C-alpha cells in the first residue's frame, strides 16, 4: 500500500533555513545540508526547499546548494521559489532535484505549467498554492514570500487547483495560510475541498503542531502527504516518533 508521506519543508533565505509565523518574522533554523542530512537519516519521506524570498524579489534560487543536496541525500526533494522559465527549471533539475514547484509565476502565466510539464513530464511539476479561507470562500494569494508584496489573487482555490491539474501539474501542495505556523492542526475543510476536486496527489501544508494533527489529517481526508517545517526543525515532533505514532494508529507509513 502506498504510504502517507511525511515531508519536511525547509524555507530557505540567503542560503539558511528559516521559519516565520504566517510568513512573517523569519527566524534562523540552521544550515541546509546539516538539516537535510538529519531528516534523511531520520526517515523523512521527502524534502521541499522553498526559497521564500525568490518569487517576490525576482531572484532565482541559489543553485549551489541544490547540487550539494542531490549529491548527499537519497530521498526525493523538490525545489520551489522564483522558477520563472524553462531554463530556471532545467538548471535545478539537472542539478539533481526531483521536482520543481511553481506558485506565483504560474498565477502570472498559467501556461507556464503546461510548458514545464511538456518538457520535463508532469511528475516533475508541483503546483504550490497559498490559500486563505474567509467566510467559507477560499482564495489564492500571491507573492507570499514577502508580506509587503503579498496580494490576494482573483482566483478561487478549488478552481485554481483544477486548472493547474488540467495544465499538467503532477502534484499540488496546498498551503493553508490561516493555519500556517500557528500549530493548531491542518485545515481539514480546505484540504477536503481540494482533494475531492483533483486526481493528482495533494500535500497538506500549514498548521501541524502535534502528533494528533497528522492522525486527524490522514483519518479525515484522502490527502497523500503532510508537510511541516517548524515543528520538525524545533524538535517538537521527531520524524521517527511521528511515524511510530501513525503506525500505532494504523496509518500506513514507511518506517
Amino acid at each position: 500500500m502506498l504510504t502517507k508521506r511525511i515531508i519536511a519543508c525547509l524555507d530557505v533565505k540567503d542560503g539558511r533555513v528559516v521559519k516565520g509565523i504566517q510568513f512573517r518574522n523569519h527566524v534562523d533554523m540552521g544550515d541546509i545540508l546539516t538539516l537535510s542530512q538529519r531528516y534523511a537519516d531520520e526517515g523523512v519521506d521527502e524534502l521541499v526547499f522553498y526559497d521564500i524570498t525568490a518569487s517576490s524579489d525576482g531572484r532565482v534560487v541559489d543553485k549551489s546548494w541544490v547540487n550539494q543536496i542531490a549529491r548527499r541525500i537519497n530521498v526525493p526533494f523538490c525545489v520551489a521559489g522564483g522558477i520563472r522559465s524553462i531554463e530556471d527549471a532545467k538548471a535545478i533539475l539537472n542539478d539533481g532535484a526531483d521536482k520543481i514547484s511553481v506558485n506565483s509565476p504560474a498565477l502570472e502565466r498559467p501556461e507556464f505549467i503546461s510548458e514545464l510539464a511538456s518538457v520535463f513530464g508532469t511528475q516533475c511539476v508541483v503546483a504550490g498554492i497559498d490559500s486563505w479561507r474567509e467566510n467559507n470562500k477560499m482564495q489564492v494569494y500571491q507573492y507570499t514570500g514577502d508580506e509587503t508584496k503579498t496580494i490576494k489573487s482573483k482566483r478561487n482555490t478549488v478552481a485554481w487547483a483544477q486548472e493547474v491539474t488540467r495544465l499538467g501539474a503532477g502534484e499540488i501542495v496546498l498551503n493553508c495560510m490561516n493555519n500556517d505556523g500557528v500549530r493548531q492542526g491542518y485545515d481539514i475543510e480546505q484540504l477536503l475541498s481540494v482533494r475531492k476536486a483533483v486526481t493528482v496527489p495533494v500535500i497538506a501544508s500549514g498548521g501541524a503542531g502535534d502528533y494528533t494533527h497528522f492522525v486527524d489529517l490522514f483519518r479525515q481526508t484522502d490527502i497523500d502527504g503532510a508537510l511541516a517545517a517548524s515543528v520538525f526543525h524545533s524538535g517538537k515532533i521527531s520524524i521517527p516518533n511521528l511515524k511510530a505514532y501513525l503506525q500505532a494508529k494504523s496509518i500506513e507509513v514507511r518506517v
Partner: protein
Amino acid sequence: MIAIIDSGGANIASVKFALERLGADSVLTDDIDIIRSAKKVLLPGVGAAPVAMQRLHNAGLVDCIQNLEQPVLGICLGMQLLFSCSAEGNTPLLGHFDASCNAFKPTKQRSVPHMGWNRLDFCHEHPLLNGVDNGAHVYFVHSYFAPLIPETVAACQYGNNFTAIVGDKNFMGCQFHPERSGPVGARILQNFLEIPS
C-alpha cells in the same frame, strides 16, 4: 566504467550521484561505443515514453541497447522501455519483455501519478534483492505501469498489481527510483553493481 544512457530526462544527475555515494564512477552518455564497452549500463528515464523512444531512435541506440550483453538496469520509465509497448502514445518500446504498459486510472482514494513510498512484494529470488527485506518501501513516481510477467522479481500494488522489479538474464529494471529510495534503494543499486559483468 558504468554508462548511464542519456535518455533526455532532466533529473538524471541523481542516478550518477547515487553511484558516486557507492564509490562507483559513471559517465552520462549517448555514445554507442562507450555504451557497448561499458561494464554495466543504466537506462534511466523520466517523462513520456514516445519522447524517450524518439530520442533513443535519434541517437541510434535502439539496436545497441537491445543487443547489450553486460548487465543493464532500466530505472522508472527506463524499466518500462524494456517492455514491448506503451499505451502512452501507443509507442513500440525496446521489446525485451513481452508485455504492454498501461495507465493507472485515478479513483477517489488513489491519485495519479502513483507518487511516494510503496512496498515491494517479492515474487522470486534475484541478486538485486540480496539483503533487502520483503515488504521494504521504495520511492515510486509514475502514471503508467508494467503488468506482472513471469520475469517479475518483485511486485507492487496500487489498485493494480504491477512489476516493481523485473529481471531476465542481463536485462533488469526497477519501476521505482533506487537512487531516491533511501538505504533500501542504495542496497539494490549496490547489488546491481555486484552482478558479474
